[in-house]
């Protein structure tokens, strides 16, 4: 195992251009995280086409998107603490103790302390990622079409954890994504499928069009519906630095949260919402001897905040080593790689070390930038919470239109985005989640092409799918992973439910 890629990555990440891009990404990410209306996936979906059409190289785009992703995990805490509304999914548990602290006039302290826990979590997560990333690269050469197909099976199996309360809907979402991926030129036989003789559909549905439709257009409609549910921003921030005693008291919680967060992040399919819930409940069980959790305990604030940041870094492990997205957000980032004609997978580290290394190194740098942004400048971000929707949403829509137009310069694709967005809204109303559609779309083409190529190699003999050690291990892992996170998230949910009853503040 060699860390050359990482030193090479630092050389990439420390160029002034990439430092600037990282800084911009961290800033936008914190902003996106702080705004309850949009999460990291919306931010990434909007920025990806713009970065691409600006002609940024692949590694710079990945640095930008990763910075946004991590920044959002930092920023999410701001609205959790000040509004009692989580800024993104990973910040749900941060409100449990953060909001009570803010109500006691200790909002500034809560922001500072959680900023530091975020930093520790992010740093521990990044170190874990740096150690993990090269582990699998030696296997890469053994990956032929058959192994890739089984890898995709494994990827779909990990969806077990995203299944949530309505598994049928998750699976339908996946199938819809797979179906959308079949539109366009068939990469094996050269036949046109479902293009309705429209040449603009010949190359299939652009990833950007799908992502922006699902995550921006439908989001704008949802924001309007949710508008007007009164929330009040706490404006009295009080002391803006963390107390030394609180830091000492929360050290254990922060480190435990980071480790739990990273491990859960590495498991594909489990995101920051699961890890923050698990770390919070674990911490409560370990430390809450006086029953102060939920009433403004600093440990209850530090633990989930460290965890969600560590998870964001951990999520990159399956993405960078296997090309398997662990969450909707990493699925979008994989799609961004494909925009650059970079095939994600075990080959990535050997073929494009500057992309993997640059991303990992930029996370190290980014955490320091984020710490700097989130301690002294937290006031600015807190003020952003008061930006009214009528000013924010038009901005989202403009960015959506420009994003799609700049990658395709065709009005047809904007209309396609609009149609997809509208259908996405209908699906969301019917209780569907958008992330499985993206996962199905990203994985679908790889899955079909590799299955067919594997069978082309073997002449139709399906034993090729079980023919190598790698495939067999993957089949076993697929079976294992399908059931483990299901069990984990069910447990987390049960605990969360128990707590929601005890503390109605979360609603």
């Amino acid at each position, binding site marked *: 195992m060699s860390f050359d890629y990482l030193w090479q990555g630092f050389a990439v990440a420390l160029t002034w251009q990439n430092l600037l891009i990282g800084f911009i990404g961290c800033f936008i990410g914190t902003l996106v995280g702080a705004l309850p209306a949009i999460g990291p996936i919306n931010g990434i979906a909007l920025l990806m086409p713009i970065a691409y059409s600006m002609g940024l190289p692949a590694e710079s785009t990945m640095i930008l998107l990763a910075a946004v992703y991590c920044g959002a995990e930092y920023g999410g805490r701001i609205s959790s603490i000040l509004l009692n509304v989580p800024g993104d999914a990973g910040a749900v548990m941060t409100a449990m103790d953060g909001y009570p602290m803010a109500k006691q006039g200790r909002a500034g302290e809560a922001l500072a302390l959680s900023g530091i826990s975020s930093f520790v979590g992010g740093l521990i997560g990044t170190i874990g990622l740096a150690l993990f990333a090269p582990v699998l690269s030696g296997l890469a050469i053994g*990956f*032929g079409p058959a192994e890739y197909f089984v890898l995709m099976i494994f990827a779909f199996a990990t969806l077990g954890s995203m299944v949530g309360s309505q598994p049928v809907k998750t699976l339908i979402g996946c199938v819809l994504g797979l179906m959308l991926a079949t539109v366009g030129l068939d990469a094996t036989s050269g036949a046109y499928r479902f293009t309705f003789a429209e*040449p*603009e559909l010949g*190359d299939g549905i652009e990833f950007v069009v799908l992502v922006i439709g699902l995550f921006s257009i439908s989001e704008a409609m949802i924001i309007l519906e949710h508008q007007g549910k009164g929330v009040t921003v706490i404006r009295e921030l009080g002391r803006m630095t963390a107390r030394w005693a609180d830091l000492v008291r929360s050290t254990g919680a922060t480190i435990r949260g980071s480790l739990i967060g990273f491990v859960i992040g590495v498991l594909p399919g489990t995101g920051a919402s699961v890890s923050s819930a698990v770390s919070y409940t674990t911490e409560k069980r370990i430390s809450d001897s006086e029953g102060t959790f939920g009433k403004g305990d600093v440990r209850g604030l530090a633990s989930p905040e460290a965890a969600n940041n560590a998870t964001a870094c951990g999520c990159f492990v399956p993405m960078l080593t296997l090309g398997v997205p662990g969450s909707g957000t990493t699925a979008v980032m994989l799609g961004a790689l494909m925009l650059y004609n970079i095939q994600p997978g075990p080959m990535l580290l050997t073929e494009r070390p500057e992309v993997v290394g640059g991303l990992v190194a930029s996370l190290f740098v980014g955490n320091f930038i984020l710490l700097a942004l989130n301690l002294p400048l937290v006031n600015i971000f807190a003020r952003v919470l008061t930006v009214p929707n009528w000013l924010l949403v038009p901005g989202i829509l403009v960015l959506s239109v420009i994003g799609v137009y700049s990658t395709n310069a065709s009005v047809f694709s904007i209309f396609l985005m609009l149609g997809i967005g509208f259908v996405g809204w209908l699906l969301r109303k019917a209780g569907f989640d958008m992330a499985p559609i993206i996962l199905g779309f990203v994985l679908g083409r790889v899955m079909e*092409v590799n299955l067919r190529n594997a069978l082309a190699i073997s002449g139709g003999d399906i034993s090729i799918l079980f023919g190598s050690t790698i495939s067999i291990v993957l089949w076993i892992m697929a079976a294992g992973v399908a059931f483990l996170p299901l069990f984990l998230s069910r447990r987390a949910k049960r605990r969360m439910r128990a707590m929601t009853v005890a503390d109605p503040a979360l609603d």
Partner: protein
Amino acid sequence: MTRMFTKTLTGAALMVLAMTAFAAAEPAKPECLAGAKPGGGFDLTCRLAANALLETKQISRPMAVTYMEGGVGAVAYNHVIGKRGKDGNLITAASSGSALLIAQGKFGQYDETAVRWLGAVGADYGVLVVAANSPYKTLGELVEAYKASPTEFPVAGGGAVGSQDWMKGTLLAKAAGQDAKKMRYVALEGGGAVLTALEGGHVKVGSGDAAEMVKHHVAGKVRILAVMAPERLPGELAGVPTAKEQGYDIDWPVWRGYYVGKDVSDEDYNWWVEALKKTTATPEFAKEREARGLFDFTLLGKEFEERVHTDVARFKILAKEAGM
């Protein structure tokens, strides 16, 4: 389709502008349309024209390179025919792959006579490659091995059935006297994937292009068994025999060139042909062409138009033979 202007050239352009007298029929807004995303083969073809024409002062203003992705050039082809048929400013990049798609009716309702073919300015050549540790050292050995067990011989290429890489594979099958339809063709995404599949031992032979494979050949990762050119290629591939030398009549040039709309005036058409003729004769052009991995292949005006028409006819026969 993205529109990006070759802004790096603006400085140079201003200087040229100050120095050159305008040619009589020079297009006011020279533009090259690439029927794909930035970075692909069409982009490369456009940039070759944009750089070389400006460098050799055939045009005084920088040429804009615009992009229109879709159907491997089909969207651009239909766009030029439908909307820019008279536009003398615009040239559009094409390759022998375009002729192959036209032959298969994949460019929509239009055939090769719907545009005016301007000229080809360079070519790459097809190659057959095996992994470095493969037992086959010559094309003859490969063909014999294929003949011996055609059903256990996966051939990989960087494109779908009907693509150029697939056609090259069918030529191998034909050389071995086998049915191309029964060939175990593995359609991968691009030459990089072919390389990986060869190295991993998943396929026995790959078809690709010389320019892309040569560096891996030199690095010792793969072995090029034959180039599909009429004569040996210069440079690092001088040591690799042609298919013809080894007794197989397999020829596959991948030319790169341009077309303009059907209703472009003869003056404009001739201006472009003349400009390309002058440019391609210069050493600066040769350097630009080599930098893009292309070999000498210049065919302009009428001759090129005839070449495209015979290519399309030949591809139609080949595709039919192969079972399309």
